[in-house]
Structure formats: C-alpha cells, structure tokens
C-alpha cells in the first residue's frame, strides 16, 4: 500500500475546506497541503447555496445585534463566546472574499449591497444575486489555485481516519479512478466534508451529502454534538426538493395557504403587511415557519399534490424586473423544474430537510477532542447555530471557522509532518483488507444499497421529522438498528475497481446509518422542545435541565451514548424568542 505524506490534509473541497487550505497557505506557506475530496471542488455542495452570507456592514447595524439575532434564533443553544467571535470576524471575511474577486451584488455607487433575511433584524446579508454559494465556491477554488502549496486529490473517497496514541495521524482514501486505497499521513487533518441531508428522503442536499465526515470522526472517537437539531427549510420544490431561497421572501414574497391567505399571521409571527417587515411573518426563522406549515396541514388548509402537501409562495407582485435582477435563479429553477413562471404563477413549496445544526464537536478554533483532528463548516458543530440556524449564517460560518481551523491546524502541524509509524501503517493495511473484503464478500448478499437507503430515509422521515415523540423515535431507532444488521448482507453488482460508484454508495450508506442513529438517540434523550427539535410529548423548552449540548459517543456495539455539556452564556441570558413585533 502506497503512502502519501502532507503536513495538513483537508477532507472536502467545498467552501470550508478551501478556506481552511488558503488560511494554512497564508499563515504557513512552507506547509504542504492535500485536499482530499470525493468530487472536484467546484462540484461541492456549497455551490447550491443561494441567498447570501451575513456580516454587519451598515452603520446603523451592530455586532451585538447580529449576535443577538443569532442567539435568539438558535433558541439560546448557541455558545455565545463563539457567536461573538463569529460576528466580529464575519465582515473581514466578506471583504476578503471581495478582494479575491467574488462578484457580490452592488449598490449604484459601487458599495456592497445587502438584503434582509429571515430572523435578522437589519439588512446584513451579502449576496451575489441568488447564486451566492456558487460564486463563493468558485472564487475560493480559483483563488486557491494561486498558492503553490496545495495538492488536489479530486475524486478520492476517504474511508477511515488513522488514530495512534490518541492523535489523528492521517487517513485512508480510495482513488476512485483506479480503485486503489492509499495511506495518507499528516500532522493534522481538517474535516470539512459537509452535511448529511441524504439521511432523509426529501432534502435540498446534493446526492453527495452523506455525512461522511461526521461518521469518520464519530468512529475515530470524536463525539457528534447537537445532532437532534435538523433544519427543515420552509420552501422546497415538491418532488425534487430543490431549494427556493429565503431571499424570495426577503425581497417581499408571501406564503399562502390553499385559500390564498397569509397563514403565518395565525402562528404568532406578526400581522401581514404588503411590504416585507423584518423579524415578522415570512421573515420569521425557518424552524417556526416549517412548524407553522405542519399545523396548517393539520387544519386541512394546504394543497394536496402527487408529491405531498404544499403551500404557495407568491412573488408575482415583485414584478419581472426585481425577479430577474435579484432572484434570477429562482425563476430559472421554477421554469426548468416546475414548468412554471413565478412572474405570473404561484410556486408550490413545502418544508424540506436543509441543514444539520449538529456535527463534529469542536471548540471555537475548530479543534476536536481528538488531537490533530479539526473540523469546520456544516460537518462541524462549534456551536454558533444553536437549535436553529439563521439563513445566511452558514456561508459566513464556513469562512470564519474554515479560516480559524486552518490557522489552528497549521500551528499544530508546524511541529512536523506526519510520519508513517508502524501502528499507523498497520491500521491502514487493516482498512485496505476491509475494503477488499467489502468488494469480495458482497457476492451472494441479499440486500441492495438503494433498498436499505430508502428504508432508512423513510424511517427518519417518519420518526425524526419536524415534530417528534418518544414513540416515533423509538420505532425509528429499532428500524435503523435492524438496517445496521442487514447492511452486513449488502450485495454489490459492481466488482470493478475502476470508478466503482456502487462501492462508494455502500460506504456512504454506512456513514448515513451511523449519522441517523446519532440523530435519533440525541433526539430521544432531549426531552424538551427547542428550536428545530419539537417534541409533542415535551412541548416546552426546559432551560433548567437542558440548556446544554448533547454529545453522542459511539460505543462498542455501535449504539451511541449521550452525554451533555453546558452552553456558554456570556452576555445574553436565556429569554423568549419574539417575532412579529417591533423588537427593540
């Protein structure tokens, strides 16, 4: 087995991974960096983010206001020291992106334009029309090419982290084109592999969002934090799950039930106004809007379609000019995927799994409890998003904490490149044998990857949706346990080494199953309702017992053990989330 050595390995070539790699290059130009990504960097899911990235820029805005919106939006589960660092470093990260060429939308005088966003008191969302993630990713990727210290391992799939003497020493990855596994050793590994939306059947997430980074860290002993908090975005297109950005509502779009009524007024989100009002109605936070949809459906006031119940998003009154300037992608997506023109027609939408607030447990510097392992972006949980992330905080998060993780890892790795000691190589050889066996042993198996995946997604949808209960969660837990066992009997049609996408899909399924279990157990143990985690059997927030982060540790038999860590409160004691009224 060949060994490759770098000072730093970054897993994932999306926004966080590229930002981390650039931070390493800029702080320590002598360090060699390898970016190991299962897709070409520009295919990474950052590409799909639409609405924007939050950072205070207007003179009437303040860092305190951004911090408060984030903390109250997160239902007080955010670590406030981390949020303070986040809002403080956000503006300079945005400017840095501007200097690197990001085509941010502009005001007539040439200054940056910002738009309002859900749960944000003032306009602070920087955007590149409604393709912000796309432009941000391409800008980062193209900029990363100018540093000579980065080697790109494109279409390499990471299967295991190598840990020796309590320190992360590297990883094993398969070069997909050849099917060959490599031992890759490094002084530090930065995990930036993104989210896990594909654990559910209906998601905005790309096919590649299979929780790989979470599962890799989890198996290596790094706990997963706050996994019960799964964000349902209120406006996905039925059937495809394609996201219609919150910017559509920020520009003035309305949500209508089947009677054409702006139903959010019935859910303590304010009174309807023709113009958008910040922190009110359609500009409320995502958790509350998705919960309102469920209640509206229960009242029989949603529209039934072949692809589930929907409500309507109405942006017709914005006119073609605003739509084409500010929301061109929304129009393109509706025309292409729904055969309708939002300039003239209503857009059918329903809540869709969008984002994992939880992830690999890190501190403010991206460090995990496993020395040598860092994490940033959606794969990580710092936690600045609390129980519900505000729209446009995630792109900013991957920049701020991608850079922080890069700098911290660079400092850690400066002590010397990873060396391939005997114990590490023995682990890598073990992994090579396991992968070989996965290919060979799958002959005669009875289970299909797609079959198990579908059953898992159905169980998660049923048991861990917008509203949960002990009964539903327990039933999903037993289904996933059974699927874990049946996974051992997976058959692969594909025995080839060359670009074996079925083998990768089966390894991804193993990752998804581990993530699913962490979500379910964390959700079962949290006997309260907070943010995106709503328990019908425990409808209230319980700060007395549960103003704390859940930590899921993998145990010998694979079932997670849940522990708790207190939330860090600095300046904003737990309070009530208020929307729809003038908040001072």
């Amino acid at each position, binding site marked *: 087995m060949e060994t490759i050595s770098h000072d730093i390995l970054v897993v994932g070539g999306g926004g966080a991974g590229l930002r981390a790699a650039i931070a390493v290059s800029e702080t320590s130009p002598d360090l060699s960096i390898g970016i190991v990504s299962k897709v070409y960097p520009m295919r990474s899911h950052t590409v799909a983010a639409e609405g924007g990235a939050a950072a205070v820029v207007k003179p009437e805005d303040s860092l305190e206001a951004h911090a408060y919106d984030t903390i109250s939006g997160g239902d007080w589960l955010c670590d406030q020291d981390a949020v303070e660092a986040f809002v403080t470093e956000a503006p300079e990260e945005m400017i840095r992106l501007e200097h690197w060429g990001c085509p941010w939308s502009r005001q007539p005088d*040439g200054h940056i334009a910002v738009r309002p966003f859900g749960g944000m008191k003032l306009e602070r969302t920087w955007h590149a029309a409604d393709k912000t993630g796309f432009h941000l990713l391409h800008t980062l990727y193209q900029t990363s090419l100018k540093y000579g210290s980065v080697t790109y391992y494109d279409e390499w799939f990471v299967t295991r982290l190598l840990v020796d003497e309590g320190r992360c020493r590297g990883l094993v990855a398969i070069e997909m084109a050849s099917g060959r596994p490599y031992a890759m050793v490094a002084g530090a590994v930065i995990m930036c592999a993104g989210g896990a939306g594909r654990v559910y059947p209906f998601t905005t997430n790309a096919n590649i969002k299979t929780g790989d980074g979470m599962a890799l860290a989890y198996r290596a002993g790094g706990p997963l934090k706050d996994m019960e908090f799964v964000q349902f975005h209120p406006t996905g297109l039925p059937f495809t799950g394609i996201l219609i950005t919150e910017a559509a509502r920020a520009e003035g779009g309305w949500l209508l039930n089947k009677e054409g009524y702006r139903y959010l007024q019935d859910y303590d989100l304010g009174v309807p106004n023709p113009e958008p009002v910040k922190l009110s109605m359609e500009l409320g936070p995502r958790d509350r809007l998705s919960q309102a949809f469920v209640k509206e459906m229960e009242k029989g006031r949603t529209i039934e379609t072949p692809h589930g119940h929907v409500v309507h998003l109405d942006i017709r009154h914005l006119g073609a000019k605003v739509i084409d300037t500010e929301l061109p992608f929304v129009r393109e997506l509706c025309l292409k995927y729904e055969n309708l023109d939002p300039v003239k027609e209503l857009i059918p939408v329903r809540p869709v799994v969008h984002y994992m607030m939880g992830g690999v447990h890190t501190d403010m510097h991206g460090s995990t409890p496993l020395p040598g392992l860092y994490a940033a972006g959606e794969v990580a949980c710092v936690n600045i998003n609390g129980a519900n992330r505000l729209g446009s905080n995630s792109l900013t998060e991957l920049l701020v904490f991608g850079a922080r993780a890069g700098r911290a890892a660079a400092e850690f790795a400066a002590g010397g490149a990873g060396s391939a000691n005997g114990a590490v190589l023995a682990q890598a050889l073990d992994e090579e044998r396991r992968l070989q066996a996965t290919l060979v042993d799958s002959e005669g198996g009875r289970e*299909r990857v797609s079959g198990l995946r579908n059953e898992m997604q159905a169980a998660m949808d049923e048991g861990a949706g917008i509203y949960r209960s002990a009964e539903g969660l327990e039933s999903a837990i037993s289904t996933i346990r059974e699927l874990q066992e049946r996974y051992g009997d997976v058959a692969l049609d594909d025995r080839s080494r060359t670009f074996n996408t079925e083998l990768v899909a089966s390894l991804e399924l193993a990752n998804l199953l581990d993530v699913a279990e962490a979500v379910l157990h964390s959700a079962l143990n949290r006997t309260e309702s907070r943010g995106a985690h709503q328990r019908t059997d425990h409808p209230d927030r319980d700060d007395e017992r549960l103003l704390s982060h859940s930590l899921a540790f993998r145990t010998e038999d694979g079932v997670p053990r849940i522990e708790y860590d207190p939330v860090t409160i600095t300046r904003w004691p737990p309070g009530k989330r208020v929307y729809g009224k003038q908040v001072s």
Partner: protein
Amino acid sequence: MTEPVTFEIQRYRPEVEDEPTWESFEVPCRPEWMILDALNHIKDHVDGSLSYRWACRMGVCGSCGMLVNGEPVLTCATYVTSVLPGTVRVEPLRGFPVIRDLVGDITDFVRKLERVKPWIVRESEKPLEEGEYLQTPEDLGEYKQYSMCINCMLCYSACPIYELEPDFLGPAVIALAQRYNLDSRDEGSQERMDILSRQEGIWSCTFVGECSTVCPKNVDPAGAIQRYKVTATVDWFKSLLMPWAGR
C-alpha cells in the same frame, strides 16, 4: 402514470472489455423525470454497476453532463419527454478519455484552468480595513456573464477544435480568463495575454460557436473568445506602432 422508454447506454468496463459497448434498458419513466432520474432508476433497481457522476440535481454543480442522442446536455436538467419519441441514447461527453461507462476524465481541463491565472492579480493589495473595492453594477455587468460558468464541460464536448488540438485551452478556460480580465479589480490581463495569445490560446478557435449554443448557463464562451481576439489584435498593432510602450 409511467411510460416505458428504451435507453441505449454506452458501457465501458476497462477490466472486462477493450472497447465501449452498448447496453439496452427499458425504463418506466414518469413525465416529471429528467434523464438523470432514469439513470438512477437503472442504478437503484436494475444494474448497480452503471457508472456516472451526479450531485446537486439542480443544474449548478456541473457534474452530470453527457451526450443524449448525440447532444451534450446536463442530464439533471433535461426531461426524458423532451428527447422522445424513440430510443434515448446516452454516452459520455465526447472529447474526454473515458474512465468508465459515462465517466470522462477532465484532468486536462483542470490543469488548463490554472494556466490562465483565474484569480485577481494586483500590483498592490488594499488592506482589509479599507473595505471593498468599489464596483458599480455596470462594472459588474462587464464580466458577470463569464463568471456564471459551472465547468460542466458541455462546451468542450461540442467544440470541434478541442477534439483535434489537444493543446487548445478551450472555451470555458478562455471565458474564465476573460471573466478576470474584464473585472475592474483585476490588473492581470497582461500576464494572461502570454498564454491566451499563443496558438493554443484564442487563435485555435475558428469560431464555430457550438460552445455557446450548448452552454446551459448562457455564458457565451464564443463571444468571450471573439472579444479577446479583438483585444489581442489591437494590442499586437500597438506593439508594432509603439514598441517602446511595452506590451
């Protein structure tokens, strides 16, 4: 409501065959399905070894370009019904070595991307504390179109020159160079000219224009190349008339 559609799919398994072959699948297609949905149906239910790339399924990641009935398209954004009636033929994009089935090798493109310095080049950097470079919506409009490229490779697949001249930088790379050349923040156009004005740069292009026709994002790489030819020609004349002015 489903309709049975016959897919003829090009297979290539380098471990078992020397040449690509064709395999036929009957797929019960729903009216709302894209070509990609049909491929996923085959992979999930019929033959898990069928190999292809896809990710976002919303036309923005650029992974799933293939030839469908001979035309380069994004399979996640092409309805099955739009290519009926008749058999649907799916092949890998032309112009790239095939790794496996519908998966082409695009390393050549990635290497060329780097050669045109697709990043902001400046003599001196403004400190972050001084804020953003001002850029009016009109300035932004100068290059915005060329910044929309998703690197899906459809233009390379459509380009008759790229197939014949392996050194040709190709439509997307030249459009990207122009994206930075036309950005009011950039000062790197002279550096980029060294590579762009060579034979393998813009001058290989005979302006067939197929690249712009197939582009799913209306980037118009052909327009970028033509525009650059004018710039380069003017520059060349200037260097003849005023050699002391430098290039």
